[in-house]
């Protein structure tokens, strides 16, 4: 047997990224590489800076220092050195963002079909029949009833809204998806179903994901690798099961041992 080729190309790199609102508020000196096809979880308690880091990584907030590099179809891009136009185009075409609150990522007043179709329309898709077919297909993929394609999501449950947001984000087949507590506000049983849907989609679409969560059970199920954040800094990183089963840093040990297991 030949030695396996274990190196994967880098997709997203944070190079010494700092974004501080005040002392200890925000994130500081963050350095990591996300490889193609990886799900990277960023875990930590509230206030640890993980959401700030996510905003900085996904182009919504420029860092005070450091660089975010993306290796896309056009080669390496320095996210904050390119213009806003290209940055937003990237978010629209090659990236996706799933908000914790589906209300932030959906147009609640327009139909489910239009919500799913919007990113396609933004890319120039101009065939109503095809948009509608894509809408039905994607509602099916995220296990929503395609018969509800003309219903507005304001009448959907929280779990259904989150599924719709995921469909709306993935319909353009992004390479890289950022998720901020995607199962955050949901009931436990709804959470489990959604996690399973996400796992399947990640595998089928070969997605690379940056996932922010405070929930270690969610991280265990979805993430290949974890960064543990505390007070704006990464205190430990490694394989998900290594971090959770053999934590090295004092804080990670505390975090892991604080989880309630039924």
């Amino acid at each position: 047997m030949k030695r396996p080729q274990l190196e994967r190309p880098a997709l997203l790199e944070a190079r010494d990224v700092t974004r501080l609102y005040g002392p200890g508020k925000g994130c500081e000196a963050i350095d990591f590489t996300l490889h193609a096809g990886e799900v990277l979880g960023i875990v930590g308690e509230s206030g640890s800076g993980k959401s700030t880091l996510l905003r900085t990584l996904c182009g919504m907030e420029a860092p005070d220092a450091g660089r975010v590099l993306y290796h896309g179809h056009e080669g390496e891009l320095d996210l904050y050195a390119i213009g806003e136009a290209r940055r937003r185009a990237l978010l629209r075409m090659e990236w996706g963002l799933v908000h914790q609150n589906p209300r932030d990522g959906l147009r609640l007043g327009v139909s489910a079909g239009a919500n799913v179709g919007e990113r396609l329309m933004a890319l120039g898709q101009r065939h109503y029949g095809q948009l509608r077919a894509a809408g039905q297909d994607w509602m099916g993929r995220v296990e929503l009833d395609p018969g509800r394609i003309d219903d507005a999501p304001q009448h959907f449950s929280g779990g259904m809204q989150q599924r719709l947001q995921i469909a709306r984000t993935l319909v353009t087949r992004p390479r890289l998806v950022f998720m901020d507590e995607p199962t955050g506000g949901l009931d436990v049983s709804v959470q489990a179903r959604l996690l399973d849907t996400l796992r399947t989609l990640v595998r089928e679409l070969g997605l690379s994901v940056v996932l922010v969560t405070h929930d270690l059970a969610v991280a265990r199920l979805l993430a290949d690798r974890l960064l543990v954040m505390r007070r704006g800094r990464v205190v430990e990183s490694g394989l998900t099961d290594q971090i959770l089963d053999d934590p090295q840093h004092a804080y990670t040990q505390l975090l892991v041992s604080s989880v309630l297991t039924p």
Partner: protein
Amino acid sequence: MTAMNQPFLSVESLDKTFVLHGQDGLRLEVMRDLSLTLAPGECLVLAGRSGIGKSTLLKMLHGSYRVTGGRLRLHFEDGELDLADLPAHAWHQLRRDVIGYVSQFLRVVPRVPAVEVVMEPLLARGADAAEARGKAEALLARLNLPERLWSLPPGTFSGGEQQRVNIARGFIGEHPLLLLDEPTASLDAANRDVVVELIREAKARGTAMLGIFHDEDVRERVADRLLPLDRHMRARTRLPDTDPQETP
């Protein structure tokens, strides 16, 4: 595959120490100076008192535990790979293609039908879904899992049924190195026989296996060699139980 007499895995002077920061940096040395070699087609069984943490070695070989000291090497035709200093992301593919793991407990993925749990390692390699399903069903049938259970999520299965799903999932990938953590613990005699057969077939394929079997009968039937651990291991009784297979 390397020649049968050349080791595929070699472990040299392996040490493992847990440092418990929550207990004033208490150092628990659980493994000291463990060495072994394992050839393709060989099944090496870890022997020792129960409760001394035999699965620690398997977890280090699977990347779940960090290595404190020593070397863990895989020998390929064109070079070797030291597992002790691999970057984390390198493990994804290593686990997918090279190192398989059959744990004692099935980690329940909510809502996924048993047959898909078994198929997953093949799908992860991009295998054809119909082909993967065929192999998964054949394995479940061999392991006498009633067909009506195949399409149900294993969360509600009995311990023995879950274990068989887990074994099928572990064997389907035909990894060159397979780590077996008490795979027969909750099986009846007939199914233990099936597992013994599966292990023998894997040996014939050239799979290198490292296993823990508390069942003496199975151990004797599959083991080519025993590796006594008592001299190298110390129970980590003061550690909290953080077995991944038991947390949801």
